[in-house]
């Protein structure tokens, strides 16, 4: 589905269904340099289970036009604007990595619009190394390589995908390669500069779920302590064997975990 938001075309995958007012809504928000396709299995699942699903392409990503937004706060405002256009009063938000920070910011700043959040492969603060930032700023392929390598657990560097026939390293790399110039840099910088995440986390009033990869090398479990302590009574699921790219590395376990708050 394509809609107009702030004068640009915003794409959201809805499983080819219209938004129905009497159904609960689940919004999926992808991470840096990615698009809605990382959520295909999960969004199909929640669509069949009686939900409106809205799997977004952030501005300048995938099929959405416009420039990538500069800050997590701007991205959160944009998500709320999407809900406004779709006439959705409140929704559960599922976000991965950068998307998790956007979901967190929405839950803190627009609490009346958010009924639950699930933060997948998350932490806050989310510092990004200079090596990645510099490569991304230069549109150097090395940025894609670093994120692809470190985005999977060591064991998944060799695959072992339960989704038959898909080489998840290759598919992730292709997604990065499809992102436009500068897009990854904008996203990584937004992650790096989002300093208020822990403060905002303390304002969350809705049910909150953290889905973490036990072998995550980009947002390690140990780095999430501040976030876990800041969010009131979060549900925390640590998925064994998974790295940062949890939707791909542990799709079934992630679905099962999501059902705890959705």
């Amino acid at each position, binding site marked *: 589905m394509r809609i107009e938001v702030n004068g640009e075309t915003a794409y959201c*995958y809805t499983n*080819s269904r219209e938004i129905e007012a009497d159904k609960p809504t689940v919004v999926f928000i992808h991470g840096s340099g990615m*698009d809605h*396709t990382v959520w*295909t*299995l*999960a969004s*199909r*699942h929640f669509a*069949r289970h009686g939900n409106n699903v809205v799997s977004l392409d952030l501005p300048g990503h995938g099929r959405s036009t416009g420039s990538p937004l500069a800050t997590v706060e701007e991205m959160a405002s944009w998500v709320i604007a999407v809900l406004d256009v779709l006439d959705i009063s409140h929704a559960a938000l599922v976000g991965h990595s950068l998307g998790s920070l956007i979901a967190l910011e929405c839950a803190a700043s627009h609490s009346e619009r958010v009924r639950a959040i699930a933060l997948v492969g998350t932490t806050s603060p989310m510092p990004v190394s200079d*090596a990645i930032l*510099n*490569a991304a700023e*230069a549109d*150097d*392929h*090395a*940025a*894609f*390589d*670093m994120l692809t*390598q*470190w985005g999977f657990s060591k*064991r998944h*560097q*060799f*695959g*072992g*995908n*339960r*989704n*038959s*026939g*898909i*080489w998840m*390293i*290759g*598919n992730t790399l*292709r*997604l990065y*390669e*499809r992102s436009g110039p500068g897009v990854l840099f904008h996203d990584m910088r937004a992650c790096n500069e989002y300093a208020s995440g822990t403060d905002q986390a303390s304002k969350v009033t809705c049910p909150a779920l953290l889905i973490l990869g036990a072998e995550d090398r980009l947002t390690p479990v140990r780095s999430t302590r501040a976030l876990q302590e800041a969010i009131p009574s979060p549900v925390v699921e640590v998925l064994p064997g998974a790295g940062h790219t949890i939707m791909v590395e542990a*799709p*079934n376990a992630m*679905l099962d975990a999501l059902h705890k708050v959705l």
Partner: protein
Amino acid sequence: MAGPDYPGLDTLALHAGAQPDPATGARATPIYQSASFCFPDSDYAASLFNIERAGHVYSRLSNPTNAVLEERIAALEGGVGAIATASGQAALHLAIITLMGAGSHIVASAALYGGSHNLLAYTLPRFGIETTFVDPRDPQAFANAIQDNTRLVFGETLGNPSLDVLNIPAIAEVAHAAGLPLMVDSTTTTPYLIKPFELGADIIQHSATKFLSGHGIVIGGLLVDSGQFDWEASGKFPTLSEPYEGFHNLIFTEEFGPAAMIQRARKEGLRDFGACMAPTSAFHILQGIETLSVRMSRHVENTRTITSFLLEQEQVTRVGYPELEGHPDQALATELLPNGCGAVFSFDLAGGREAGIAFVDALSVFSHLANIGDAKSLVIHPASTTHHRMDAEALAAGGIGEGTIRLSIGLEDPKDLIADLKQGLRAAGKAAGGSR
């Protein structure tokens, strides 16, 4: 700036796609010889059928052993995904029926494996898909043959039988300029000798029966998708970019992005045409791939030794190997195939058909059969076997003489291969009436 290193080819050949078996801890990939797989409950079953969860339903669609092989070849080629098929022919057919229907057209190299040529030239026209065959050495010929209804450009990394080196970068440029993907058959080269996706190809087909396996005990094929071709931007592939009624109006490019082609091939082509690989075959092919680099380097080393020997023989009038001076693709081979041009080549014997037959019959280490890519050395005399229906004129048009011999060089000690070839040359000399 250099990013972190990905695992190398040899490491991927041993590990890609495989994890120790979660049920038993088995280090080797088990053979999951099961037609179907149990569902824990009805909702789980529904979620598998509706592509919500990862898992297996029925081995025509996917199988855990096959899945390891599929990931492994996708990793080795640098693609997004792959499908294991019943044969190399099935992989070619699967690609074609995924991308097009009746009324479509293919531009293909004229130097193809006979089975591929049969499919394109004689069988597919009956289903409304026509092919124009062009000189594999002439990228402009590919461009000139493209029509409005063309949907695929196809060639072999090393053409049959003259080992024409496909100029993948140039032909990919021609294809992409027309909004078309380039598919290559890399059976004789394997990812050890060439990485077609890095050169611009979009789809790879393998007969895994050959060098990938190396043992000559299975029939199997592999179809690999690079994920690099933009099917939507092309606008010529409604099977991928428009709703598919056969799966609740799923739009493959919308839901699977870079993996649209390989997902449609599985969800439709494998489902409906059913040319799946047996799990035991996948297991055998995996055993072969584990030693791919070691075998291929020895194949090439032995081939270089044998071609050098043959060049020195008075009875041998031509040795067709791209690395050799005089081969029209020598420069291109140096550029695209620095690790070697494979282990299959042909040479011409003086003395015609009789000499060729006598040569083959006198060999004892080389096996006389219709295959290539075995660990054992193989020989065939095309004029009396694979091409026996052709007269001399027709053979010549295909680059085959009455005294042409095709060898597939194996892994034996080269001194024994040379001794065997000498035996053959003596017999050929007698048959030709000479006194050598």
